[in-house]
């Protein structure tokens, strides 16, 4: 292999970085160059290897192979402390803050060395003024908004005068106003010569902010481009991948043209909490034997749609959701289950299952009506244990037995158990979110098989997922959820990267050919792509 040319002008140069975890190649020969003062986007779907790569740069993980050069010097970054000493700062998605401590105390705790409180307050004040960031140093953190909390993390980084600032999905929890303020600050920082590595999957933001982009897919660099010039659609296609049409297709036929089992019409829902997305006029139907996939980036109404379908949040009107022709829009989750609509939410521990209860008890929670696990108010333990045992056996759940606590299972095993618990109730309609999230490939195939079998037996299934390959493999029709609106569903057979890129770019519902030539100059912001 040819030696990689050393770019002395580069702030950061990664050469053929590789990192493997058991069963996964998280990064494979990743090379990228960040120039001084450049805002460089690291773009990719969830699981594309972005987080692993920045953890390597920040010293949280050691690469298996490859070289890192910082300001032209070959460096080994063994810990975050080393990274900070070099001038690398990082703002994580999960903040490392202390709720009961004041802002200035939080900043002091984050420093590597001791510093006089007055001197520190002076320097922090200077930074806040220089970047027009409002922040009250004496307030306790628990009284602050998410945007203000993020500012604490940013100030911690800026105090060490970073040459490279890594931001991991910084806008996922911010309001639009806070995003504007953050961008202004980042631009100013870049103008002063600090390089910024900006991780995101929000294409609109990247177009607005970044001057270079490296696109990762499945751990490899698939493209490097200038996001100011490249079209949003093209970047979405690069993220999704060229192999899109080559995905393994389902082959067996199922009863076609079955009766409509689940119908959603004109479903609108106000936001159910802060950072929650309102649902706007959602409409689709699912027939017996059919699987409908709902794609889109998290945070565009996915969790809200699941809550509305499962019954955790009631729809405004009973007719908005019908199950086998009967209105259930106002029915609660338990009542919907009894009538045959089961649901699997995305969060396993604490939502789909109670971590401190046994698998038997967790089976009791959702299957007691449909499988008569209770009798006259008493629990039928033997029956429930038998059911839990059958789920464990059929789905190959690795657990010590039905008595194992849900928390003792690994994420993938718990997911298999939860999916099995619902599938084996033979529901008329099954709504699942992220059915194979964090599950290894073999188990994922088993879950997909079980979903297909359930559909073949006449159930209607809705799969909400961010994994496009999964949706292409199991669903008959595909729709995209974007900013609380659902596109029309297109047959999976006709779903190309191009068509989906269009649906995800926020320009949906229009016929695909109209954009084949003359790409729109700008996609409405904020535009999102697959995550």
């Amino acid at each position: 292999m040819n030696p990689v040319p050393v770019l002395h002008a580069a702030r950061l140069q990664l050469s053929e970085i590789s990192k493997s975890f058991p069963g996964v190649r998280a990064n494979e020969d990743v090379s990228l160059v960040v120039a001084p003062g450049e805002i460089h986007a690291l773009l990719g779907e969830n699981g594309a290897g972005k987080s692993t790569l920045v953890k390597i740069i920040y010293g949280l993980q050691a690469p298996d192979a490859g070289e890192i050069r910082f300001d032209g010097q070959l460096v080994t970054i063994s810990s975050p402390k080393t990274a900070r000493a070099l001038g690398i700062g990082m703002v994580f998605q999960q903040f490392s803050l202390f709720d009961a401590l004041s802002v200035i105390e939080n900043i002091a705790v984050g420093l590597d060395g001791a510093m006089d409180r007055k001197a520190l307050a002076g320097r922090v004040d200077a930074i806040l003024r220089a970047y027009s960031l409002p922040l009250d140093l004496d307030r306790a953190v628990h009284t602050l908004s998410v945007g203000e909390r993020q500012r604490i993390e940013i100030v911690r980084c800026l105090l060490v005068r970073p040459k490279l600032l890594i931001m991991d999905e910084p806008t996922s929890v911010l309001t639009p106003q806070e995003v504007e303020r953050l961008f202004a600050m980042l631009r100013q920082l870049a103008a002063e010569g600090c390089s910024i590595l900006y991780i995101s999957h929000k294409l609109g933001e990247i177009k607005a902010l970044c001057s270079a982009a490296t696109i990762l897919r499945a751990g490899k660099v698939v493209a490097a481009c200038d996001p100011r010039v490249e079209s949003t659609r093209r970047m979405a296609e690069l993220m999704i991948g060229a192999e899109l049409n080559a995905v393994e297709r389902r082959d067996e036929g199922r009863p076609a043209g079955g009766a409509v089992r689940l119908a959603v019409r004109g479903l609108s829902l106000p936001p159910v909490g802060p950072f929650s997305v309102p649902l706007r006029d959602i409409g689709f139907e699912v027939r017996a034997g059919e699987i409908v996939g709902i794609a889109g980036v998290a945070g565009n109404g996915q969790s809200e749609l699941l809550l509305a379908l499962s019954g955790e949040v009631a729809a405004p009107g009973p007719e908005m959701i019908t199950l086998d022709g009967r209105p259930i829009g106002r029915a609660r989750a338990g009542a919907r289950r009894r009538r045959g609509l089961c649901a699997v939410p995305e969060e396993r521990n604490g939502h789909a299952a109670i971590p401190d209860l046994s698998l038997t008890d967790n089976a009791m929670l959702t299957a007691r009506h449909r499988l008569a696990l209770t009798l006259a108010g008493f629990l039928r333990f033997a029956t429930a244990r038998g059911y839990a045992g059958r789920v464990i056996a059929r789905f190959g759940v690795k657990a010590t037995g039905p008595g194992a606590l849900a928390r003792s299972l690994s994420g993938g095993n718990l997911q298999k158990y939860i999916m099995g618990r619902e599938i084996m109730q033979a529901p008329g309609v099954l709504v699942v979110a992220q059915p194979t999230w964090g599950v290894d490939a073999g188990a994922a195939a088993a879950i997909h098989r079980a979903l297909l079998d359930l559909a073949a037996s006449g159930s209607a299934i809705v799969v909400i997922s961010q994994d496009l390959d999964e949706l292409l493999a199991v669903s008959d029709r595909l729709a995209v959820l974007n900013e609380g609106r659902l596109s029309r569903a297109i047959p999976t057979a006709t779903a190309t990267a191009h068509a989906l890129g269009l649906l995800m770019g926020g320009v949906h519902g229009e016929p695909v050919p109209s954009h084949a030539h003359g790409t729109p100059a700008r996609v409405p912001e904020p535009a999102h792509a697959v995550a």
Partner: protein
Amino acid sequence: MTSALLVSFAMTLAMAATPILLASLGELVAEKAGVLNLGVEGMMLIGAVTGFAAATLTGSAYLGCLAAILGGLAASLVFAGLTLGLSSNQVATGLALTIFGVGASSLIGAPFVGKTVARIGPLFPAALAEHPLLRVVFGYDLLVYGALALAAAVGWFLKHTRPGLILRAVGESDTSAHSIGYSVLAVRTAAVAFGGGMAGLAGAYFSLELTPMWADRLTAGRGWIALALVVFASWRPGRLVAGAYLFGAVMTLELHAKAAGFGLLPPEILAMLPYLATIAVLTLISVRPGRVSAAAPACLGKSFSPA
């Protein structure tokens, strides 16, 4: 006559408050780091017996105090090893430590039952404390002054020093502290050890000053009062001093009432007073919602294992 009574009351009060203050200061530091150690009573008893034994062997009460600190510290390190090293449940382990301390002190103390020992004794020369009013100021042993100074030092340490800040941070969010790069378990072990040493010293105050004679269970549940006091003081050293002296006053009232032959209430009821006061105080605090929970370290009692 009444002034003599008042002087004696004030002095008994300060001396009754001192061991509670010492033990609760130690527990406050441990809890600020996020560790709930319910073994205070047990560590006090272990300190009391090691202190008594060392003082008997060496003839020096101060060496006895040092041994007591080491005894309490050793007991607390067992607790730290179990709860921090092996992530055992803090409540259960703390209760076990108390039960262990009761038994161990009884066993070790068996040869000393009924024996007396040299007291710690007043710090200042007797001439300085001759006048009754001066005696209220200068008439105590080293630990009475030391406990007050330590309370101020702990308050200053927690609020104004970097190690104090790190300790509070660890008690507030172990995961955040870990991700910044602090060793949560090392900080907590140090805090628990401090708590153990202070509880041991508090125990020695019973066996070497208050009742300079060995008897089983001579701490009489004061460790539990120290625990309650930390909550009562909402984890603030200043309030801890006020609380300790308040409880000292209640206990002294009980003693004086007994001595004066106060006949309205049976002595058993009087002996209950400090404990009833503890329950009353805890109830009063907890009926005001939000206050206690806001002051408590967020990770109090939670196990942490670095991933």
